[in-house]
C-alpha cells in the first residue's frame, strides 16, 4: 500500500510534535530538534528511532515522505533481563489504516529480539480506545489492569529535591 521501507534514520522530522498534539499536551514538549540530534545520535545514544517513508509520488498533502516513526530504547528487567521500551509510535493521520503503525511496532519488536530482549513495554492513555484495541489485537497485556502496576514519575523538581537531600555518598 505504498509503504516504501523502514529505515533507521539519521534525521528526525517534526513528528514528535504532531504526536504531542494528538495527546493534547503540546505545552509539555520541552525539548527541540537539537536535543533529539544530540541525545539520539552521539556516542552514547539515549534512544533509537525507526522511520516509515513513502515513495515520492505518495507523499503527504504538505509534501512529506517521512510519515511515521517509532522512538525506543533498551531497558532492563531485574526479573527477565533485556527489554525494549517503546516511547513513541506515530503515523500521520492521512496515512493511518494502512498497516504502517503495525509495521513500525513489528520492526521495533524484531530489533529487540535480535539483541535478546524478551519484553517490549510502553504506556497508553486509558481514553485512547482505538490504540488500546489496536494493541490488544496484537496480543499484548495491560499490566496496569491485569497486575495492578501504577506508572509513577518524578519530574524535574522532585528529581532535584531528591538528588539534593541527605547526602550519604561514600564513593
Amino acid at each position, binding site marked *: 500500500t505504498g509503504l516504501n521501507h523502514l529505515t533507521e534514520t539519521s534525521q528526525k522530522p517534526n513528528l514528535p510534535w504532531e504526536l504531542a498534539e494528538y495527546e493534547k499536551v503540546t505545552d509539555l514538549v520541552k525539548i527541540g530538534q537539537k536535543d533529539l540530534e544530540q541525545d539520539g545520535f552521539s556516542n552514547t545514544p539515549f534512544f533509537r528511532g525507526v522511520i516509515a517513508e513513502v515513495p515520492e509520488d505518495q507523499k503527504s498533502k504538505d509534501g512529506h515522505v517521512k510519515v511515521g516513526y517509532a522512538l525506543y530504547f533498551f531497558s532492563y528487567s531485574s526479573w527477565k533481563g533485556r527489554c525494549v521500551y517503546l516511547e513513541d509510535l506515530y503515523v500521520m493521520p492521512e496515512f493511518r489504516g494502512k498497516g504502517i503503525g503495525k509495521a513500525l511496532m513489528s520492526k521495533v519488536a524484531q530489533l529487540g529480539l535480535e539483541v535478546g530482549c524478551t519484553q517490549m513495554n510502553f504506556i*497508553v492513555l486509558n481514553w485512547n480506545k482505538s490504540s488500546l484495541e489496536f494493541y490488544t489485537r*496484537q496480543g499484548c497485556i495491560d499490566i496496569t489492569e491485569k497486575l495492578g502496576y501504577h*506508572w509513577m514519575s518524578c*519530574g524535574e523538581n*522532585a528529581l532535584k529535591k531528591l538528588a539534593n537531600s541527605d547526602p550519604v555518598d561514600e564513593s
Partner: protein
Amino acid sequence: MEFKIRAAAKEDCEEIFRMIMELAVFENMPDQVKISHRELENHGFGPNPLFECLVAEVPQEEKSKEGNGIGKGLLSKVAEVAKTQQCARLQLSVLDWNTPSRDFYSAKGAQDLTVSEGWHLIRFDGENLDNLAKEAPKDGR
C-alpha cells in the same frame, strides 16, 4: 543507623539477586523471575553494561536489623546520578495494593500518572512478542 550507599560491583550480584527474589516474593510473583545472578553479572558488569545499580550496606555489627532512611538514601542517589546525566525524569511502576511504597514515592514527589492522567503500562512478551516481530517488513534495514 549508619549505612553506606555505593555503586554495585560484580561481586555484589549474588546478594543483589537474593534481594531481587525477596522483592519478587513480596510482590507475590516469585515465579516471574527468569534470570539468575549470572545474567546480572554479565549484563551489568561486562564491556557494555545494560543497567546500573547501587547497593546499601550496613556495618557488620548492624546486620539483619531494620533500617531507617536506607530506601530514601538509595532513591536520592539514583536521582543524583540522573541529574549528572541531565535526565528530566525518574520513572517507575508500583503495585496498586502496595500502599506503604505508594506513600513513600508520593512523599518524595512522584506523581501517580495512572491515577492522575490515566496511563496504563502495556507489555508484549513471549509468543506475542515473537509473532509481532515476525510481521516486520523485510525491506530496508
